[in-house]
Structure formats: structure tokens, C-alpha cells
């Protein structure tokens, strides 16, 4: 935003100082709880409970993490989440591409009607109960399908993808391919998909994060413990405070057990969030790109 080499006025310097101070303040407010949780998770349990941890770990150790990995349900929840995320995301991406390409074509007769059908669902819905009943009627309760099919397509992502197709695949390319005898199926497979790397990355990311963090559909559609995704297990432990006595039973002292229970929670927060946070720096620029594509009025 620096356009000149004119010496900044007093007002502008004040502006800059205030700007940087406020940003730093917000930055620290976001960062501090994250660092605290990380530090608490590797501190001594009694120090955490006594409130001796402020910023850096106190007597670092890995007891909390040991407790997390000893917990049977956390392991199975992790695997279930991974399964639902991978399967669900594959279905999502295929469905989104299938919907977005025809809608991006100018000569697709009926485009506006179908678009309206799609967009209307974002503004009006039948509600929770009818949505639940359809899943029930299709006999999908307590199956993996209840986790991946009801949300198989996000209209918002279809719009983003459609806008991408419209702006980055020139119509001349289609004409050229058609003259060479290429049909629409082949065109999508050989031209559109290979040219759509960035947008596929973006929607894959959006969908995958959504599946990984999904909690409500598991709550209403599943009641078998061995099928629970990680988020349900996390809710039981973090929010309903349901840490089974068995896993901590080798510790006799009640106070110490209580402390370890707190420590376990901090470790669990870290373990369950780290996978996403690790991928995140690599995909950050795609995320930004996705939001920018979406912001173009299509």
C-alpha cells in the first residue's frame, strides 16, 4: 500500500502504530490459548491442576499422550473418521464435478431451471425430522452410507467449481475438441479434469475438513459404538467428562487420577487437531484461492 516516497505525515505514522499494535494484540489473543493447550498437554498433571502452567510446559513429560493412546475408543474413532472422510470426500468431489460442468456450459438447455433447483435448497429445507426420516426409510441408519450420502454435495462448492470452469476453460477449447470429434464425456475426462487441479484441491480440502469435523450426523444416524467417529468419542470425553475408570484404575490416588484426567483432555485436544494443522500450511494458499473464486459473482 506504499505508493510514494513522501515522508509519512504524523497522522499516518500514528495510524500505522495503532494498526500494528491492534493486530499484534489480536494475534497474541489467538495464539496464547493454542500455546497454553500445547504446553499443558506435555506438563506434569499436578502442575496443570494447580495452575502452575502459564506459557511454557512445567516438568515436561508424555503421560497425557500415553493415556490417549491407551484408550481403545480413540484409536477406533480415529480409523472410523479416516474411513468416513476418505470415502465421503471421494463421493463429494465426483458429485460436485458432475454437477458443476453441465451447469457451466452455455448451451446446456435447462441450465437455469436446474440451477434454481440447486440454489433453492440452500435457502429452504424440509428440516431435521424429514431429513432423518428419509435416511431411515432408505435403511441407512447405522451404516456408513448415512455418514457420506446425505451430505454428498454442497451447492456452495458446486457454484465455486462452476465459476472456475466458466472462467478458466475457454469455450474455444470445447469447439476445437468437438471439431476433432470429441464428445462431452471425453472432454470432461481428458480436458476439464486435468485442467482443474487447483479447484479440485480446494473442494477436496473443504469437504475433507467438513467430514473430519462432522459430529451431528453421527449423533443422529449412528448408535453402534464401534462405528463412532472420533468427534463423538471426543464429545464423550471432553464435554460429558466420560473418562472410563478402567484406563486410569492403576492409579490409586484420587487427586492424581483427577489430574491425569485433565491432562488427558489437553493431550486429546492436541492429538485430534494436529493432523489438520499439519496439512494446513501446505494448503493455505489453495484455501485463499477457493474463497476468492467463490467471491466472484457467477
Amino acid at each position, binding site marked *: *500500500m506504499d*505508493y510514494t516516497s*513522501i515522508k509519512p505525515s504524523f*497522522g*499516518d505514522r500514528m*495510524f500505522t502504530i495503532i*494498526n500494528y499494535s491492534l*493486530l499484534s494484540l*489480536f*494475534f497474541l489473543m*489467538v*495464539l496464547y*490459548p493454542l500455546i*497454553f*493447550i500445547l504446553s499443558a498437554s506435555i506438563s506434569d498433571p499436578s502442575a496443570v*491442576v*494447580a*495452575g502452575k502452567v502459564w506459557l511454557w510446559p512445567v516438568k515436561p513429560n508424555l503421560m497425557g499422550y500415553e493415556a490417549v493412546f491407551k484408550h481403545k475408543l480413540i484409536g477406533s474413532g480415529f480409523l472410523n473418521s479416516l474411513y468416513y472422510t476418505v470415502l465421503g470426500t471421494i463421493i463429494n468431489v465426483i*458429485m460436485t464435478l*458432475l454437477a458443476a460442468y*453441465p451447469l457451466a*456450459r452455455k448451451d*446446456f*438447455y435447462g441450465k437455469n431451471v436446474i440451477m434454481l*433447483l440447486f440454489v433453492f*435448497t440452500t*435457502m*429452504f*429445507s*424440509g*428440516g*431435521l*425430522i*424429514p*431429513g432423518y*426420516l428419509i435416511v431411515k426409510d432408505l435403511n441407512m441408519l447405522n451404516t456408513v452410507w448415512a455418514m457420506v*450420502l*446425505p451430505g*454428498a*454435495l454442497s451447492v456452495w462448492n458446486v457454484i465455486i467449481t462452476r465459476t472456475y470452469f466458466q472462467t478458466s476453460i475457454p469455450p474455444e477449447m470445447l469447439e476445437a475438441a468437438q471439431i476433432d470429434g470429441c464428445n*462431452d464425456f471425453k472432454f470432461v475426462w481428458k480436458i476439464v479434469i486435468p485442467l482443474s487441479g487447483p479447484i479440485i484441491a480446494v473442494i477436496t480440502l473443504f469437504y475433507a475438513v467438513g467430514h*473430519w*469435523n462432522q*459430529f451431528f450426523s453421527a449423533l*443422529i444416524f449412528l448408535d453402534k459404538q464401534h462405528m463412532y467417529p472420533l*468427534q463423538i468419542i*471426543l464429545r464423550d*470425553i*471432553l*464435554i460429558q467428562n466420560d473418562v472410563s475408570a478402567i484406563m486410569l484404575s492403576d492409579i490409586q490416588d484420587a487427586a492424581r487420577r483427577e489430574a491425569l484426567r*485433565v491432562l488427558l*483432555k*489437553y493431550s*486429546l485436544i492436541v492429538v485430534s*487437531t494436529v493432523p*489438520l494443522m499439519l496439512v*494446513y500450511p501446505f494448503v*493455505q494458499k489453495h484455501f485463499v484461492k477457493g*474463497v476468492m473464486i467463490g*467471491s466472484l459473482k457467477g
Partner: protein
Amino acid sequence: MKALQLRTLTKRPSVPSASPIRKMLRVWQLYVLIALPLLYIVVFKYIPMYGAQIAFKDFIVTKGVWGSDWAGLKHFDRFIHSYEFGKIMRNTLVLNFYNLLAGFPFPLMLALSLNYVRIRWFKKTVQMVTYAPHFISTVVMVGMMFELLNPRNGLVNNILQAFGLDAINFMGNPDLFQSIYVWSGVWQSAGFNCIIFLAALSSIDPSLHEAAVVDGASQRQRVWHIDLPGILPVAIILLILNMGSMLDVGYEKVLLMQNPLNTRTSEVIDTYVYKVGLVSQAMNYSYSAAIGLFKSVIGFILILTVNQIARKANQTSLW
């Protein structure tokens, strides 16, 4: 040869008036492609809308949606006259307006502020860290709040006590519920939501800023007279979208944050629908569906109204 060219030339104008069936046949492959997504939309979105008619019926599972007897507006009547109605409506509206009022300006201010940062590493670091909480799931987010706000050994109360103040039982106080909900939301998503404003800011013509600098405008004046008007259209569209989804924002989080102590302020339409329809022993699908439909209709009216107002006032609208 010449005659053929002539014929193709004269034939051209008749193409746009081809019959709809011909036009559809010409792109039949596109219909094949979109068939599956369309099937999905019909099955999981439109059939439930059709199923929402159970709100006007006494739904019995064995009789099905169509076979159950009509009950008129009985369920709506019951909801509006129930003693919970006033409380639930007030909670829903207060929570959502509060969320909108507090949640909307922050990303905007953050974007404006970041836009004037010239030190690249500083900007990158701030962005990186403030986007990060967006990836924390609702469950973990609420779990974090429970730990940090814990009255006995939570961080926030430790800080309060270090300053000699009394510990506060945050999660058990119904008067604090809404503030905790809203400000934890700001903490989690202000960074991520500012991306869209940053994108809008970067599309403002730089020559406007150059001209303003030449004319001696201060940075504050440039924010006010160039940046803000420049991102106003995007802001309004986002506002309309937020208003439309206003009544169903984040009920997962409300549900997770709920406990017997704070239901006075934390019971909203969606959590009530869930409890009446799927949790309580006497599951009442019809009653629950009626409440859900009530909410959907209000939400729909809201988005139409806001869109209309925005169109009148600013020539910016969704459609």
C-alpha cells in the same frame, strides 16, 4: 459447392428456434453427467421438503407420510402456545443477532488492518495464526472452552485469581452463555472470514489510492473513502447470506455448550427440534417437524426481505 455454402448460411438463423426437445437431445451427454447430482438433490433435499407435510399431520411411522391423517395447524398451534415458545424464540433471535453484530465487523476490520501492513513476514505470520483456529472442530472448540473456563483449574480463572478476582463459573451461568458463544466464535473464525474481504480489497483499482495519495489523503481517509466503499458490495452479499442462514447458525455448538444450568438462555429452535423429535422418550415427529418448518419459513422470509432491502438501497443483491 457454392449452393451448399449458401444453404448452410441461410440455415443458420433457424438454429436458435429449434424445438426444446432438439436442444435437449443435442446435449444429452450433459444430462447424463448431471443425473446423479440431480437424483441426490431430489432424494435428500426435495423429498424431505415433501415429507415436511407431516407437520400438518399426525404422523404414524407404520402409515407413512402419505397415509397419516391430517391434523391441520394443530402442531403449530401447540408450539406457539406452549410455555417454551417465548423463551425459545427470544433465545434464537438474541443469539443470532448478537452473533451477527459482533461477528460481522471483526473480519472486516481485520482485513482493512492487514491491508495496511507493509512488513511481509508480519502479515504472513498474523494470517497464518489467525486462520488456524478455523480448523478446530466444534467438539474440540467447546472442549477447549470447558477446560480453559473451568471454575476450579481453568486458565481464565487462574488469571482472574492472579489479579485477586473471584473465580467465575462461566459455563454454569446462563447470563454468560450468549457472550461465550459469540466471542469464542469471533476468536475461531474472524481470521478465516477476513480472507474474502482481503480478496475484495486486492481487487480495488490501485490508481484510486495513487490519486488519493497525490491529493494528500491520509491513510485513515483512504480507508474510509476508498477501501470501505470498495468492499461494500461483497460485505452486503455476505450479510444477506448470513441473514438467510441466521436462524440455523451453529446449533451443533449450542447443543454441545448446553447443560442443565444454562438452558434458560441456551435453548434455541434447533436444539428444541432435536430434543423433541429424536431424543425424548415420546418421540413426536410431527410436532418436531412443525417447529422445524416454522423456522425454515421464517428463515426464507428473512432472506427474501433482506435481499429486497439491499436491492432497493444499494443495487446489490443476490438475484
